[in-house]
């Protein structure tokens, strides 16, 4: 459990955050530019000298009115919004700076694996000013990971990374989260990253926490802005039924319905999360035939929410006690005469999950 209560007053901007965050899984800090995400993360690390407040992590007190655990004694890893490499050290020395400073028995990650994962083998002998933007950021991520932290703070670590690099690093972070049970606090405005990684979400606006809770709940909460965005989506919890059905598909169990995804490397019985974007859902009154739509779930309409786009509507439906969002055109709502409590078929392209 991470208990924090911070106040900062900078005149035009003031931050006030009181939070109890789970000390496992990924907590995403989400909010617009200037909403105070970086500031809050810095408070947790102990970097904001002017912050008033208190902080404890897993029962250990890090900060109170009178006490302040020095930064370098906090078992954190921090990836800064700007890479901020040490300009006078080569990449390898940058990577191992923190690694060399922790006791051998605490080193859960080794330089070799991190270097390989980040694809920076060829850069080890270079100075930071001889790197591209994305290369610098990968080194900064590696540097923080190599301190084998007990709490990882990441401030938009992927912002300057291409899709391929992201796709390589994200699973690694998931692995850290799950296998090392490393809690991560993750600042991002890429909702895909958030929905993929985060379990818990904190929504900031102008220095205030306007919502906080389970990712699933917040994503589908009609009073929050998430459902209003183009990327509105939900996360479903399911269990693996058959890892490989022969043609590369994996069969999941959602309540008593089947769901096919293409995810591999899972084992039977394993709980998984699948992300469904609101716009990837098709609603039908009768189960269609002869289409490439693999998944057809039975669902009930919960309610119909307005959409920022006047031609659209957001239909909240319930499948196996979980909420899904479907963005459909108003014309379709009319055509299908959708209304609350009605039975519908939710058609999801298998490939849209992941």
């Amino acid at each position, binding site marked *: 459990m991470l208990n924090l209560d911070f106040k900062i007053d900078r005149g035009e901007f003031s931050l006030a955050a009181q939070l109890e965050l789970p000390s496992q899984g990924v907590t995403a800090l989400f909010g617009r530019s200037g909403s105070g995400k970086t500031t809050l993360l810095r408070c947790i690390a102990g970097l904001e000298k002017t912050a008033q407040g208190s902080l404890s992590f897993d029962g250990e007190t890090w900060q109170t009115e009178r006490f302040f655990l*020095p*930064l*370098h004694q906090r078992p954190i890893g921090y990836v*800064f919004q700007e890479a901020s490499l*040490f*300009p006078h050290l080569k990449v390898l020395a940058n990577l191992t700076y923190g690694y060399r*400073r922790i006791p051998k028995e605490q080193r859960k990650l080794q330089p070799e694996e991190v270097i390989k994962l980040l694809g920076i083998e060829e850069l080890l002998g270079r100075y930071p000013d001889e790197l591209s933007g994305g290369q610098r950021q990968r080194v900064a991520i590696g540097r*923080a990971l190599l301190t084998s932290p007990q709490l990882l703070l990441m401030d938009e670590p992927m912002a300057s990374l291409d899709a391929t690099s992201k796709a390589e690093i994200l699973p690694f972070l998931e692995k850290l989260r799950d296998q090392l049970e490393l809690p991560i606090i993750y600042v991002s405005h890429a909702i895909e990253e958030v929905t993929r990684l985060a379990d818990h979400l904190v929504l900031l606006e102008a220095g205030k926490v306007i919502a906080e809770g389970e990712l699933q709940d917040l994503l589908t909460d009609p009073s929050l802005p998430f459902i209003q965005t183009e990327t509105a989506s939900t996360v479903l919890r399911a269990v693996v039924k058959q890892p490989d059905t022969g043609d590369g598909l994996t069969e999941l169990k959602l309540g008593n319905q089947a769901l096919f995804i293409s995810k591999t490397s899972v084992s039977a019985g394993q709980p998984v999360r699948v992300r469904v974007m609101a716009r990837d859902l098709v609603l039908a009154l009768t189960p269609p035939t002869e289409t490439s739509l693999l998944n057809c779930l039975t669902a009930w309409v919960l309610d119909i929410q307005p959409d920022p786009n006047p031609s659209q509507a957001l239909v909240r439906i319930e499948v196996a006690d979980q909420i899904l969002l479907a963005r459909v055109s108003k014309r379709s709502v009319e055509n299908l005469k959708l209304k609350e409590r009605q039975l519908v078929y939710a058609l999801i392209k298998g490939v849209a999950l992941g």
Partner: protein
Amino acid sequence: MGISEADLIALWTTLKLAVVSTLALLVLCTPLAWWLARTRSPYKVVVEALVALPLVLPPTVMGFYLLVLLGPHGAVGRFFEALGLGHLAFTFTGLVIGSMLFSLPFVVQPLQNAFAIAGGRVLEVAATLRASPLDRFFTLVLPLAQRGFLTASVLSFAHTLGEFGMILMIGGNIPGRTQVASIAIYNHVEAMDYSSAHGLSLILVASSFILLISVFTLNRRFKVVNLA
């Protein structure tokens, strides 16, 4: 006439003085400069001004005041006599103190400037990487402030080589102990022994030149870090 043995001894004393006082200054001024670079204390400007003050008095005059202070009637002198060490006038230690006072601003100011820049973000990063304040200082501030240290060393070293008025006054020009090359050269000039003066000057200038070139060349081999 060439270079006498006394001249060589004087050169040696000079070198020793310049090295010792430069090193001592670097050690002592590093915390002072660090404090000046970081503090928001209103006294900062006072300290900054005080540091530069030894420069404004003519060396001989400064030397005279120092002599009074370090001599048997002066506060510092009496203190050292009470310790059974004797007063400091006309000793090598006294010379070192005098030279240090006089080169103080040449060390503090470049270091302060370098520290003002070598701080900030990278120190925060290092703290999150488990580096203690001292560790950060040695692994980041020092290397990043490298040019400041170079400048401080060069200025202090060269200035001590040439310093003269104050050294004469508190040193007493004792051959083998406090007679330094600058005084020896000056004596040659005054004694109209120009050839010795030229010879010794040439040695001093040439060896300094070679030393400086080596230092600057060595410096080039380090990574030039542009923090902007």
